[in-house]
């Protein structure tokens, strides 16, 4: 080998990796002091690291299954709540949609802004802000809803609120958990979506 081996070939040779042309590199090292010194350095540093790791074992690692198990159980509870919330929300939305469709045609009642729900923003933007505004609108318009409708509203929103509280509590203890943050945002969006349907209902009677 007349030209110098590149750095990757030298490190492979130093580590005894036979996938490179070992004979050619060895022949080059016999006539090239620079490459020879580099290989010796690469080998020496590797051995130094290995020796240091062997001598520096440190304390035996401390297992902490209990705290991990708690975190896992908390996640499982949040997922269960999420699943139930989704199922209940979906069922309630279908029921509400069916009930609404039997009472009126959307074409008969345009979605005009009323005094009950002025300037309600899109729930696609900031779900938590939209939820607060929608909640106030629904609270102000509860008198326009029948007992049956109020029952449906509570059955729809209450489990979402429980799931939001549980997820928020979990997030407080682990603020970096991206899953929980996403989950919380999704819950707020579900709540906004559910409330939005009732705001529409209230508007239609305003």
């Amino acid at each position, binding site marked *: 080998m007349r030209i110098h081996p590149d750095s990757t070939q030298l490190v492979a040779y130093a580590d005894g990796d036979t996938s490179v042309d070992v004979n050619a590199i060895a022949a080059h090292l016999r006539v090239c002091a620079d490459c020879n010194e*580099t290989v010796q350095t690469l080998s020496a540093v590797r051995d130094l690291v290995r020796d240091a790791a062997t001598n520096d074992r440190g304390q035996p690692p401390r297992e902490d299954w209990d705290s991990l198990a708690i975190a896992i159980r908390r996640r499982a509870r949040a997922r269960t709540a999420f699943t139930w919330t989704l199922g209940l929300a979906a069922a309630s939305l279908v029921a509400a949609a069916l009930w609404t469709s039997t009472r009126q045609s959307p074409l008969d009642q345009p979605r005009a802004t009323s005094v009950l729900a002025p300037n309600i923003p899109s729930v696609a933007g900031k779900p938590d802000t939209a939820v607060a505004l929608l909640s106030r609108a629904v609270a102000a318009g509860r008198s326009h809803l029948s007992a049956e409708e109020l029952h449906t509203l509570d059955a729809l929103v209450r489990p979402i609120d429980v799931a939001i509280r549980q997820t928020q509590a979990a997030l407080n203890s682990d603020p970096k958990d991206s899953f929980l943050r996403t989950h919380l945002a999704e819950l707020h969006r579900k709540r906004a979506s559910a409330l939005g349907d009732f705001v529409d209902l209230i508007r239609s009677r305003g």
Partner: protein
Amino acid sequence: MWISRPERVVAMTSHASGDVDDVTRAARGDAGAFEHIYRRYHPRIHGLARRMVGPDDADDATQDIFFRAWTRLHSYRADAAFSTWLYRLALNVLIRRSARVRGVAKLTVGVTDENLVAVSQPLDARLDLDSALSALSPDLRAAVVLHDIEGFSHEEIGKLLGISLTAARMRLYRARLALRAFGARR
């Protein structure tokens, strides 16, 4: 504890049969099966974490890795060994955590002409490993930890880090010269 490559391979192979059953059950939500996985791999993952993020952060990083493993078990495909999947996940977590640690950039030893000149200086027979490793960027640190301490081959390092064989060797080369320069400065 340093485990030589043959011992490491035997240890990982002997885990494989138990892994399949435990991983299958754990992916269905069986926390008991995941506890078996945790106790089986904790020492090695903790050892990797200790070298990658330092002894002070190793416990927390290890818990983080296993928690993430639990939440991502559904993404594991049996076409690769579970140990490989877990190591890859661990390295992703550890490299991210390392990169977040402020001050690493300031300490990181770059490979410059000056470093290469330092190669000719005598090598210190002892090395403060934690200090030396913390002086490397997370990518270089991962390469040297995986090869020189954990015993993975160049090709395995490439697969674990998601880089080519050439890139893995280049990182090893740069890491060792940087460690050499670090030792020469002290």
